[in-house]
């Protein structure tokens, strides 16, 4: 047992830091370190920058253009990027579809799609949830009927994240209505410019149009864009959900938020005293900082031991719950730091580096929006209630 990074790991970290120093745009960095979310263009530009450096997908195997990094070095990469103020890499292509294509896609699919994920040319989105099937994916209703060399897709997807910018969607559709709920589902890749698709962005609590409702009306999808076998989509979806969870804890983003909290609490005064000097407030910051350390060690422990697992574990669910709770709690403390200055509110502009135009201290401008936005963390991607169900079943059935 040795909880220190190896010298080689630390070398990698230093390399990442040098790269970030040199290549992360100052406007993006400034915006993210102030607690504001990355804009769409920040995300696109950063993926292009990483790709140009050969780091478009550090976790992918080398034969698909990745670095084949160990899990620990993946963690270091994400941690360093996040704490430096880099935008997130979109998970839909890189972490979700990519591994599915590598495992189940045919060579044509792999050769066409994987490089375009890597370069950022294709923005992918996920078509899983539906209005009546949020947590309960197996009850999805969007139908695809075979018509010669095409599937004809009809139905509706909901809570689709950032799909209004997407070029492609990977999508679960029902291809056999007679089968049991989890059978009869297929996994299709759909060009978002196909006729018959309409997209309606929905604002979240903070006013950002981050999720969409998407309707399919007789959308024709070539059979060649089905991944794997017909009616086996549930298998691929499960595989994907497992891969989605590698960096589910969000340690890097939480570390960035914690640093931000400490900066704001040192600057903002209430009653003539910087908030960080208030013993109660300071203790709450300390509690969260400790929990974040426990989350990070737990994350490292779980990914280190992943290779030696013999049975499924509730690890990912534990990380998802605590990760979301900690991020939400940091956002709450940030809000409390500024007291009454949490009240003035404006929706965030979409692009770096602008803050919302509000009177009062600049550091207060995005904090309310941030708090509101992060309420989603305990709901999307499998609510914390669903995660607890998973944990309990694993504990009790083992």
């Amino acid at each position, binding site marked *: 047992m040795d909880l220190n990074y190896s010298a080689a790991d630390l070398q990698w970290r230093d390399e990442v830091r040098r790269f970030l120093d040199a290549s992360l745009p100052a406007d993006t960095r400034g915006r993210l370190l102030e607690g504001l979310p990355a804009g769409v263009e920040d995300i696109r530009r950063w993926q292009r920058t990483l790709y140009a450096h050969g780091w478009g997908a550090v976790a992918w195997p080398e034969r698909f253009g990745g670095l084949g990094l160990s899990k620990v070095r993946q963690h270091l990469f994400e941690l360093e990027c996040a704490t430096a103020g880099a935008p997130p890499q979109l998970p839909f292509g890189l972490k979700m579809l990519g591994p599915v294509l590598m495992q189940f896609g045919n060579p044509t699919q792999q050769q066409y799609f994987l490089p375009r994920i890597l370069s950022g040319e294709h923005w992918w989105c996920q078509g899983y*949830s539906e209005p*009546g099937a*949020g*947590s*309960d994916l197996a*009850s999805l209703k969007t139908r695809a009927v075979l018509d010669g060399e095409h599937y004809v897709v009809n139905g509706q997807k*909901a*809570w689709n994240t950032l799909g209004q910018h997407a070029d492609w969607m990977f999508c679960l559709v029902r291809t056999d209505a007679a089968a049991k709920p989890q059978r009869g589902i297929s996994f299709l890749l759909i060009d978002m410019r196909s006729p018959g698709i309409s997209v309606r962005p*929905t*604002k*979240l*609590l*903070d*006013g950002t149009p981050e*999720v969409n409702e998407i309707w399919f009306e007789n959308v024709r999808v070539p059979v060649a864009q089905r991944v794997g076998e017909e009616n086996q989509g549930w298998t691929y979806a499960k595989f994907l959900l497992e891969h989605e969870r590698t960096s589910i804890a969000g340690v890097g983003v939480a570390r960035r938020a914690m640093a931000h909290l400490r900066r704001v609490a040192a600057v903002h005064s*209430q*009653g*003539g005293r910087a908030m960080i000097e208030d013993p*109660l*407030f300071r203790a709450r910051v300390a509690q969260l900082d400790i929990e974040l350390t426990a989350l990070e060690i737990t994350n490292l422990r779980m990914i280190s031991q992943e290779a030696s697992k013999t049975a499924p574990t509730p690890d990912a669910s534990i990380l998802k719950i605590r990760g979301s709770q900690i991020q939400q709690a940091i956002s709450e403390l940030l809000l*409390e730091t500024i*007291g*009454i*200055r*949490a*009240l*003035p*509110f*404006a929706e965030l502009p979409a692009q770096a580096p602008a803050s919302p135009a*509000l*009177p*009062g201290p600049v550091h207060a401008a995005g904090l*309310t929006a941030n*708090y*509101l936005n992060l*309420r*989603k963390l*305990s*709901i*999307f991607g499998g*609510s*914390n*209630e669903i995660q*607890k169900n998973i944990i309990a079943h694993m504990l009790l059935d083992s």
Partner: protein
Amino acid sequence: MDFSFSDEQGMLMDAARRLVTDQYGRDGARQRAATADGYSRATWSEFARLGLLALNVPEEHGGLDAGPIGTLAVCFVLGEALVVEPFLSSAVLATLAIARLGSPEQRLQWLPRLAAGEAIAVLAHEEGDGGPVATAVRTVAVADGGEWVLDGCKSVVYHAPAADLLLVTARIDAPTGAQTALFAVPPDAAGVALQPYVTVDGQRAADISLHQLRLPSSARMGAEVGADLQAVLDQGLAALCAETLGALERLMRMTLDYTRERVQFGVPIARFQALQHRMAEMATHLEFARSMTYLAASQCVAGEPAGRAAALSAAKVIVGQAARFVGQQAVQLHGGMGVADEYGVSHYFKRLLAAECRFGATAWHLTRYAGTL
């Protein structure tokens, strides 16, 4: 010991409920938030017509003088519908301040107009340093040749953009120590600058800066106003608790209804025991908040100042924690519908969030209460 409303208070609630039903419908708060003013002048006239703006006007000026319990009854109903008209700002805080501290001329000048809905007044006191304390004022008033000169800043003054009259607190350094004074200020006076904005709960507020603002000596209301101003602030806090209780109760009801209707895994999600227990906890928070809201109003009727301060802080802590818990859990139990801005939960969640921050946040009141132990 009596926890019921009088017949008269019941009639006030009925009036408020009628107003809300007629004027607000399902989406009144959201519609108003999208307008330039952020509230409806037509609705404001309706408030006046029903006599609700005379709630805190003394009887001698033709008002109802309904007191803190009557105010509670009305604010509770307004909170249920997330009413955004400046009731708390003008018909509670400012009206009470003028009634208690205004000169006979000022009372005659303003109270009838406020009661008739012809004018809106706001109390500009808070400066961002924490709690609703009469003496916490850094804005300075200096006497200069028969005039007063004011310099300072006021933070997040709700409904200031709509106001015809600002009631501004300032500190006067007198030989006997600093005093809090109150001034009647026209919003368009030279030296007054408003920075208006939308608040998180979709209302309108402004920061107000006062720079070499010159006022005639008649603008000063009352002499040493500390105790009266504190009583006004206390009633404002009690009224905010009542509004918040209304919002809490409606949100609880919405959550119960939603979980009974929403089907997942083949059953209404209200059947899931984990969610049932969460709702039981929400209901418990709600009942505690109800009790403490009643206590807050009751203390404004009869409490002596020190006990009243402790009771009000206790009430704000309980109501604030209920707002946090019930708000967050309502969002969580609504799932995607909870975080989508277009559904109703969002609006309630943000109003509860604003209530947490206003009149001293939960942590501030907890610390003040701890000081009284």
